[in-house]
């Protein structure tokens, strides 16, 4: 009897170990995948922030060169300054996205204003700044697309079985997309032929 009991206990322990082993076999790779996903999201978000920062740094130069030709257009300079401050204060992905939209709108307006000043458009320094700005907008679009793709993949993992169980167990949550406000051009279109 005693021997039998011992045998049963052993079997039970083995079964438990086997179950744990099987669960672990399924859980660990998925868990690692989620961790990896989070890392990728962080990395691609850093890229977005890089480009936002780049734009942020570029703006004072741009504003100064426009001021040289159009000092009286004060409204737009105030709007840009405000958008820039908001961006500086933004903490979350959503806040950053909102501030970014604000900044995009202000820059788009600035570009419309610039149209009125042919001398400014012909300025070599200004042309370079505009190329830099356009390049930054493009990089931002690329970084945002990369970020959203990574988030999409991660969210799929978090929401589908069995990832959802593991995500719940370890507290992984869906990540926010970097969204563009509807109605606002995704970025100011910087476009000028060499003839103007």
């Amino acid at each position, binding site marked *: 009897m005693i021997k039998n009991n011992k045998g049963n206990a052993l079997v039970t322990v083995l079964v438990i170990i086997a179950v744990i082993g099987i669960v672990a076999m399924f859980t660990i790779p998925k868990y690692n995948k989620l961790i990896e996903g989070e890392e990728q999201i962080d990395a691609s978000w850093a890229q977005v922030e890089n480009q936002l920062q780049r734009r942020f740094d570029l703006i004072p130069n741009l504003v100064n060169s426009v001021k040289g030709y159009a000092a009286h257009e004060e409204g737009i300079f105030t709007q840009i300054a405000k958008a820039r401050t908001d961006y500086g204060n933004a903490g979350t992905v959503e806040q950053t996205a909102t501030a970014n939209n604000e900044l995009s709108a202000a820059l788009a307006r600035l570009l419309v204003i610039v149209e009125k000043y042919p001398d400014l458009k012909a300025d070599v320094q200004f042309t370079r*700044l505009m190329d*830099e700005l356009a390049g930054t907008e493009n990089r931002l679009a*690329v*970084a945002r697309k990369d970020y959203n793709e990574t988030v999409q993949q991660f969210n799929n993992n978090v929401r589908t079985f069995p990832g959802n169980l593991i995500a719940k167990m370890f507290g992984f949550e869906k990540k926010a997309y970097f969204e563009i406000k509807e109605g606002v051009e995704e970025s100011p279109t910087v476009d000028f032929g060499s003839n103007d």
Partner: protein
Amino acid sequence: MRFLVSIIVCMLVMPLTIMAAIPEKPAYNSYVYDKANVISDDVEQNLIRAAKALEGSTGNVIVMMTIDTIGDLAPYEFGTEVIRKWGIGDEKLNNGMLIFATTDQGPGKNDVWISVGEGLEGDYPDGLLGSMVDTYMMPYLENGDYTNAFANIFSTFYEEMGGDAGGADLVKPINEDDDWPIALIIFIVIIYLSLSKFGGGGPGGRRRAARRIYRAGGFSTGGFGGGGRSSGGFGGFGGGSSSGGGAGRRF
């Protein structure tokens, strides 16, 4: 709400449809993809050899392309996607560059664009690339002269990056400070190009002859065997990427 979400998801999946407009990755990197056939054949061969020499001596990979249209893509999207999909440049250094121009988007709507990998962004910020396009390409492109536009911009990069063709004079250096009239420069470039190595053979046989030389590795001065490139060797695509840098114009 669900509908909205699905729309958003669709928009996020858009890149899949974008990919359709990107040319397939060629099996072998021949540096110049004159899909629209607007670059003269001799110049094309010179560009190929010089680009190969440039990769050999500096590691930088410059790919040039002419194409009828890039569809609905923004030039930066096209450039970035081609660099990524083809893997132009070294995987770690991201030192690839793509110069492309369209031919059939209508007057004033054609795009010329230079896309760079991150590794070249420091030396060639967008502002500089834009002004280089203005200086070296636009005067020709406005007259539909793709040949000289590509020859000029490439020569400039070749000089600046310190390309070393092992003594062979592959591209004509262009001196910015010269006050020569453009017509004279064009004339000289044309003379130079027609006197260059592939000059032999009739007009019909030229392309094939040049191809043969290229295939046979005609430019085997041996000066660039042990470059620090990691994989693939010359002519390969190294797996380079781009984060969207570059500049361009419409013409």
